């Protein structure tokens, strides 16, 4: 095996891990898949991944060591890409090195659902939540509208790269603000159910589950840092909606 092939395998393994990490996979799965790719092409891999960085070291048959550090700065949630990479690695024997690279690039460049479907998801999610809290149809409509606003706000803050804390602070504020507005207009009689339903869109479910699965599979560093993310998001939602609620309830004397 010449040097060029080794470098190719190294960057291929790195690309696999990077796609999975950026789209919301657990870290232990990222490490497993990187090692699987490298082992399949006959190298001895060692891999360490955290939420923000992947470190891979490969050893070839002559004992030479090559390694690579890759920073991962942005993370979104696109579980379909995780699923696609998983199926690809499961059938790794059907692909050569170059074909695998092409497939991975194809997955990486795939577009997520269009914005309108994302908005619809927000609305359905927030709206139907009101029924789980035994809400009525008016509260459903209020939460439904809040869903649209939050989807738009998330989109804007993502484009401006304002960070997780501020995004959730703002969205929490929007959710209680809109609910208070509806109360002021006399459309609903209680603000609690629409606010809770809308807050549910922001609850860090992905981070929570991944942190649990990582901690229980032995990746303590990542699991705990993810748990920190959960606590941070939870606090920012509560603070944001709390500030808006306090401001508006006192302002309107409702």
């Amino acid at each position, binding site marked *: 095996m010449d040097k060029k092939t080794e470098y190719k395998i190294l960057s291929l393994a790195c690309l696999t891990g990077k796609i999975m990490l950026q789209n919301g996979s657990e870290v232990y799965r990222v490490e497993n898949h990187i090692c699987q790719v490298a082992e399949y092409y006959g190298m001895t891999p060692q891999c360490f991944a955290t939420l923000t960085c992947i470190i891979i070291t490969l050893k070839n048959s002559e004992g030479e060591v090559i390694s690579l550090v890759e920073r991962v700065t942005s993370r979104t949630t696109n*579980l379909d890409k995780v699923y696609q990479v998983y199926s690809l690695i499961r059938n790794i024997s059907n692909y050569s090195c170059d074909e695998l690279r092409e497939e991975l690039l194809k997955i990486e460049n795939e577009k997520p659902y269009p914005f309108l479907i994302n908005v619809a998801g*927000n609305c359905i999610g927030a709206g*139907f939540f009101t029924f*789980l809290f035994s809400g009525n149809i008016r509260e459903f409509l209020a939460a439904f509208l809040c869903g649209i606003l939050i989807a738009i706000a998330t989109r804007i803050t993502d484009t401006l790269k304002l960070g997780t804390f501020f995004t959730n602070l703002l969205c929490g504020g929007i959710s209680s603000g809109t609910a208070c507005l509806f109360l002021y207009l006399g459309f609903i009689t209680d603000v609690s159910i629409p606010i809770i339903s809308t807050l549910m869109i922001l609850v860090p*479910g992905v981070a*929570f589950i991944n942190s649990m699965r990582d901690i229980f599979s032995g990746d303590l560093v990542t699991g705990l840092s993810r748990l920190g993310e959960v606590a941070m998001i939870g606090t920012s939602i509560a603070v944001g909606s709390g500030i808006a*609620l306090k401001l508006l309830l006192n302002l309107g004397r409702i």
Partner: protein
Amino acid sequence: MSVEKIIFQIIAAIFTTFGFGLMFNIKHKNLFHTSIAGGLSWAVYLLGQHLNYSEGLTFFIATFALALYSEAVSRIIYTPVTTILIAALIPLAPGGGIYYTMYNLIDKNYPMAVQKGIQTFIIAGAMAVGIFSASTVFRLYDEIKFRINKNI
């Protein structure tokens, strides 16, 4: 609770999970299975409430049933467990707990806020234990299957 209301709530849970599936970019068969899983977890949650279990236990059995279902399905249709588990767990997430803690804090009702905060932590902990137990059950299953195959 009447039967119609229970069925209505389960359907609402299925739709909620479907909406969150769209937000997390889940597609095709994974989206279908995650919606079903969402309905299932809510059904178990309602059952727990009906039997007057404590809050922690109710959330534990709901999450446990959900995680068992997700692990089983993910082995049948070959998909990562998280694609099914994440969206389906959202209906159980303690968003109400966060809200009431915050609401009581700004109301200067500190004892109530502490109580709601502890309740939220208990729910989150119960859900963690539920996920953990189910994945351990299936890890055990994989291990036993592996050993049996090795002996033959």
